[in-house]
């Protein structure tokens, strides 16, 4: 077991890669009452084309299968795993994103029992034809629920407009048609390939004994057998630099129209220092312009183009990145024209030293705030770990950024062919 001390934030992290390939992280926080554990696979809705374990031919599986699998893992032959956690005083949950599937619990007692339950239920699938059929109805309802949510439609619409090939332009849950094609065998194919310990991470933070926790996890893993896994061959189609569609319009019943401007931030694989620099600057710069202290926010507010529904979000992952600026508006045309115009004007702008210092401070404060939450630490740590960045090193990395880094980034941040507009409006 390796340990790493982060003096500036007073944290010590323990790490070990087990014989079967599983990467384990332990973050003791003895001051907390709670313990939070997450068991995550590097597999999400975008992993639809790959070479299954033990085979040599590439296959493409039906859309929505990663999310379908997540649902089905909780169901065992004789019981529902949620109830097992409840009886042990834990609350459990799971989620599927474009690039990850994660299973988690939090509890203040019976920690070791709950850890075993988490490891065992994820590593012991039970899929039957009958239960797969039953699930299609439930997930079909979930998909329809999303179809009725304007905010989700607005988000997915923007992503679809930005990305032509990268499969994040497909709904995480798939479509009613695609999930109807899913079979028990498809589930096992995906499971056996992507739930191999080599492709998974276990992160636990909170109140436990480090030594005995690691022993427990090791013994649990040693008792199970897994085939050998060479690196998983996944293939993502090549993504062009420019957006798929400049405009995307969707009609549904909404009382006020929703408009977003999307920025295609990244379309190629990024890792390490290249990733972290872009990740930090992308976030700091959009927030510099569009948060309440920002010049653009002020202008939009004064001209009455935005109201309290205004928001922006930004995300960078290994294979893609986007930012979205949006809000409710009675005049989507004016909203998108104005924001596009503001964005295009940034090529010639300069951030001052003083402003950049403020941006760095704000980002450092945000990081420290988010480190109060074990849930946040665990999911962020895994997110950055996937691209070979250490989450706990972010503060010193931010401190080393210079205003020249920021201005170099700003010069090339926006170009017309990487912008899309998505409008959701009533019939």
């Amino acid at each position, binding site marked *: 077991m390796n340990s790493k001390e982060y003096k500036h934030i007073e944290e010590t992290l323990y790490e070990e890669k087990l014989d079967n390939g599983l990467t384990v992280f332990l973050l003791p926080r*003895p001051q907390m*009452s709670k313990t939070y554990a997450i068991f995550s696979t590097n597999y999400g809705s975008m992993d639809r084309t790959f070479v299954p374990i033990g085979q040599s031919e590439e296959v493409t599986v039906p859309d929505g299968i990663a999310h379908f699998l997540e649902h089905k893992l909780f169901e065992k032959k004789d019981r529902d795993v949620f109830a097992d956690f*409840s009886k042990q*005083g834990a609350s459990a949950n799971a989620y599927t994103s474009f690039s990850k599937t994660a299973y988690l619990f939090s*509890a203040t007692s019976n920690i070791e029992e709950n850890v075993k339950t988490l490891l065992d239920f994820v590593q012991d699938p039970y899929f039957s034809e009958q239960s797969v059929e039953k699930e299609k109805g439930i997930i079909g309802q979930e998909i329809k629920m999303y179809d009725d949510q304007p905010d989700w439609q607005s988000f997915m619409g923007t992503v679809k407009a930005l990305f032509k090939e990268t499969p994040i332009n497909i709904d995480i849950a798939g479509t009613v048609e695609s999930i109807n094609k899913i079979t028990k065998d498809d589930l096992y194919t995906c499971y056996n390939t992507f739930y191999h310990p080599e492709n998974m991470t276990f992160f636990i933070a909170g109140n436990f004994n480090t030594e005995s926790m690691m022993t427990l996890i090791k013994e649990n893993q040693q008792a199970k057998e897994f085939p050998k896994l060479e690196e998983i061959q996944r293939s993502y189609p090549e993504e062009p630099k420019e957006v798929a569609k400049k405009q995307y319009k969707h009609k549904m019943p909404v009382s006020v129209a929703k408009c977003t401007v999307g920025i295609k931030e990244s379309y190629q694989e990024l890792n390490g220092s290249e990733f972290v620099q872009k990740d930090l600057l992308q976030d700091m710069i959009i927030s510099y312009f569009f948060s309440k*202290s920002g010049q653009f926010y002020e202008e939009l507010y004064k001209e009455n183009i935005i109201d309290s529904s205004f928001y922006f979000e930004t995300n960078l992952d290994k294979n893609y990145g986007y930012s979205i600026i949006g809000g409710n508006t009675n005049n989507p045309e004016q909203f998108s024209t104005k924001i596009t115009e503001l964005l295009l004007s940034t090529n010639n702008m300069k951030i001052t030293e003083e402003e950049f210092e403020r941006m760095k401070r704000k980002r450092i*404060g945000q990081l*420290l705030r988010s480190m109060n939450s074990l849930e946040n630490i665990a999911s962020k740590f895994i997110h950055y770990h996937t691209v070979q960045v250490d989450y706990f090193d972010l503060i010193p990395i931010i*401190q080393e950024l210079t205003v020249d880094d920021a201005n170099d980034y700003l010069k090339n941040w926006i170009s017309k062919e990487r912008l899309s507009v998505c409008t959701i409006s009533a019939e």
Partner: protein
Amino acid sequence: MVTIKEEVKKLDSYNLHLIPNEKFKTVHIVVKLKAPLDRETITKRALLPLILQQGPRKYPTRKEFQIALENLYGAVLSIDGGKKGNNHILSFRLEVANEKFIPNESDVLKQAIRLVNDVIFQPNVANNCFDETIFNREKETLRQKIRSVVDDKMRYANMRLIDEMCEGEAYQIHVSGYEEDLDKLTAADLYEYYRSLLKEDQIDIYILGDLDKVYMEELVGESFQRDQISQRTESKDEQLNKKKEPQEIIEKQNVQQAKLHIGYRTNITYKDDNYPALQVFNGILGGFPSSKLFINVREKNSLAYYASSRLESHKGLLFVFSGIAPEDYEKARDIMRQQMDAMKNGDITEEELSETKDLIVNQLLETLDHPQGIIEMLYQQVIAEVELSPHELIENIKKVNLEEVTEVGKSIEEDTIYLLTSEGGGSNE
């Protein structure tokens, strides 16, 4: 696990609560101003957070104020008002990065406390009047907020239940204020009231973080300036609008789902010795997905998606609520009442008791992992005027036995049943 240590200093103009704690990477500064609930002042107290949130005189535009917060490592300020028993509490909360985790930084906390002081005591005022533009804009924000209650049917039904149940009592007062009072309000009136509030409200300051106590006390002492204080004349005990027979109120609106809310008087409050037993009582009745209400209304009879209960700890109320199909009213009501009767008759298993106690303890412990949760729990003692630390409360919960739970059932009285239903639905009786 680290126990929560609170040191309270009762000073002339405020009480200072110091909570050194190594759990967190940030420091929380919370200032609470307490006054009796009063129809005369409630609309003003509802509007004040919206105006003060725009920033102090030192930073008269939102942009300048946001820049100041960003320079303080992205400190986050929020101001809100709430009801606790017969009191109204204004809370100012600032969360700021703890400088000990930032290399070469030592001035953040001092500035943060000064900023809180400025927001409270140096508001953006000219000629004894809040800034008119801000005042008028925020008046509209509050108007929208008051009007929007009707859009959230669960909140609306809860408000209407309290209207009917507590008619004539202070607790009836709407926390967002009243539109007719808002119309009459001027920026000068509001400031005049704010000045009197600063003199008369009881102020409690909480500082929580990985800090040295002596340093915290010093910082607050030198930065926090409350000059004048005067005693408010507290009103005497009020007459409760208790019913001889439970009353039933049915209202109709264009809704798909009916809201059924039942209000009970527990006659037990936070300061009472049998409060832990009441909390367990509520837990078994409707606090969790394993509780009687959830199991019987939802799981066994499929009448609702949600069915649960909740306590108002300082006023002594218990609410049972559920969203049902309009035609299921009588059936749902009867099943909900049966659960209360079962509780009162001691129809509770040892397993229900011990599982519920574990769930409550787990919930309280998780609350103590959140900075705001710790402060809110500690402040309960101020409201109840009793000394009972969170850990004592947890110990007391663990000790509750079946007899005590059944015993508190005896003091619980049904007061009002409120149904919000569809135009065609409702009662056949």
